[in-house]
């Protein structure tokens, strides 16, 4: 199979308007990937599938990744000349800046006809809240059908052009996306018909106390922060 650089160069020659970035994988597996743009991803995917030398007819794995906002501390060293004429001092300066987070989808492509692979392609959303639409690759590889539904369900990436974008594993009325790193699990996760112990404490903290009967001194509700821990 061609190297990933050759594939990228061939794609850039074929799609001059596209922006394709090579994402390196520093680990021992060294499976590098191509970062595509949302606007041209569908065309490029179709080309990868139909091109005679590549024939990537099989999309094995499609998955999402959550990269939350990250605070990056950069340390720069500056040498300051000593006014008294001694050796220059080295001062470390720390600057903080916020790297905005994004959601990512990764597709592992193989060729069953040519028996080679993988070619890994990635797509990134603009942010994690309102710009979360990416093109669906289900029209190209039908194996993405359930997997993209799962990504939509668990990560909240919306796939434009998906034939049937519904939740796959969680039920329809569910609102959050559980695989995101900032997801908070519900209090009554371990719901029991007859709660006791720590589960009862959590249930008491979660549900409002019944209205106090007249003449009985109302007991203060348990502190929710204590009960949760």
């Amino acid at each position, binding site marked *: 199979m061609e190297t990933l650089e050759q594939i990228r160069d061939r794609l850039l020659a074929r799609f001059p308007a596209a922006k394709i970035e090579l994402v390196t*994988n*520093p*680990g*021992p*597996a060294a*499976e590098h990937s191509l970062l595509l743009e949302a606007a041209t991803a569908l065309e490029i995917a179709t080309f990868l599938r139909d091109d005679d030398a590549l024939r990537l*007819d*099989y*999309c*094995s*794995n499609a*998955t999402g*990744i959550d990269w939350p906002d990250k605070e990056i501390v950069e340390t720069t060293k500056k040498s300051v000349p000593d006014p008294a004429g001694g050796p220059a001092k080295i001062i470390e300066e720390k600057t903080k800046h916020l790297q905005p987070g994004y959601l990512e989808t*990764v597709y*592992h492509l193989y060729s*069953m006809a040519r*028996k080679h692979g*993988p070619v*890994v392609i990635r797509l990134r959303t603009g942010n994690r809240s309102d710009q979360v639409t990416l093109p669906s690759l289900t029209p190209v*590889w*039908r*194996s*993405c*059908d*359930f*997997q993209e539904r799962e990504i939509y369900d*668990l990560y909240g990436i919306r796939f434009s052009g998906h034939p049937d974008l519904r*939740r*796959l*594993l*969680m*039920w*329809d*009325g*569910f609102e959050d996306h*559980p*695989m995101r790193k900032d*997801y908070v699990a*519900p209090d*009554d*996760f371990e*719901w029991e018909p007859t709660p006791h112990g720590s589960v009862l404490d959590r249930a008491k903290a979660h549900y409002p106390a019944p209205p106090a009967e007249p003449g009985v001194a109302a007991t203060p509700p348990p502190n929710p922060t204590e009960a949760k821990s």
Partner: protein
Amino acid sequence: MSLFPAMGAAAGPTVRAVHDEFHGDLLEVSMGPQHPSTHGVFRMVVTLDGEQIVKLKPVFGYLHRNHEKIAENTSYLGSMPYTDRLDYLCSMTNNWAYALSVEKLAGLAVPDRAQYLRVIMAELTRLVNHMCLVGFLFNDLGTSFTPLLYAFREREKIIDLFESLSGSRMMCNYQRFGGCRVDPSPEWLAAASALVNNFPRFLDEYETMLTGNEIMLARTQGVGVLDGAAAVNAGLTGPILRASGVDYDLRKVDAYGFYPRFDFRVPLGAHGDTYDRYMIRILEMRESVKILQQAFRDLPAGPIMDPKAKLRGFRPKPGEAYGRIEGPKGELGFYLISDGSPNPWRYRVRPPSLINLTLLEDMCIGRTIADSVVILGSIDIVLGEVDR
């Protein structure tokens, strides 16, 4: 709010009439999640025109426990026993797929003896899975458990071996990153070898009962025909794909483990119907027996763990890896991203059972409900892996 009312509300009525302007009055039947033919808690919403299926929508998630999230909050080794619970009939191959991915992520080597042991365990698991699948398939045809109990009689012998080796019958937790956990004794190897040598006799007995069975032929030949090109596009893998005539077996293609050292053939189907899917399993079991006999013959002495592998304080360098093996149900893959911490940043299971259901609707359209049960049985799913 509790989780349970929401689950109940989503289920809806079991049977209801719907009106469609092209077909007239249709009947919508909700099969499952509590239905013996669904092999667990799987639901199919089937729309019927008379007796014919015109639409089939699978509904998942009744066994969902967010395996991936749990694994992201656990150490790498901590997820190993949990992979047993994915496809609970094939814990050994699940372990191997996960160990293989972590070894790829961390760049670990595996000693020769451990490679052979892995092949032995994987092929024994393939025998267990395929014979149970054939038994369950006949159950779906209405044979009331008899073929399944023949399979379970043999399966019992294999899981007894697993128990004496790993301490557990089904949840073996046997592989480690860079090797295996326990070295089998010579007595264990002798017992396993004897079992494998007797296995073709069981297969002959099984086939005498089943393969030429008239009811079986009438119910499976030409039922649920799957086109090879459509199957490739839909990402179907494993015996179903090969039953449609596509030659793609990761044991040959990826040549992972020590499979290139073994002499075996990949059986292929010609029609892609349910009968071919049954026959492929029988033929694969015969090939597995050949692999096992070679493995017992050639098993070298030596260590079973890579001396550089660390069990405690295991932190792979940042990077990512996608490892895959040919599980009994299809391509089982694990995609891992390490950020240098003891827990994986991303842990993804590529479940063959879920993706093999992509074409269930296409296979069932035009058939009856009774056929859809047989077709689902021939796909071979385990809900622990579908819903994760």
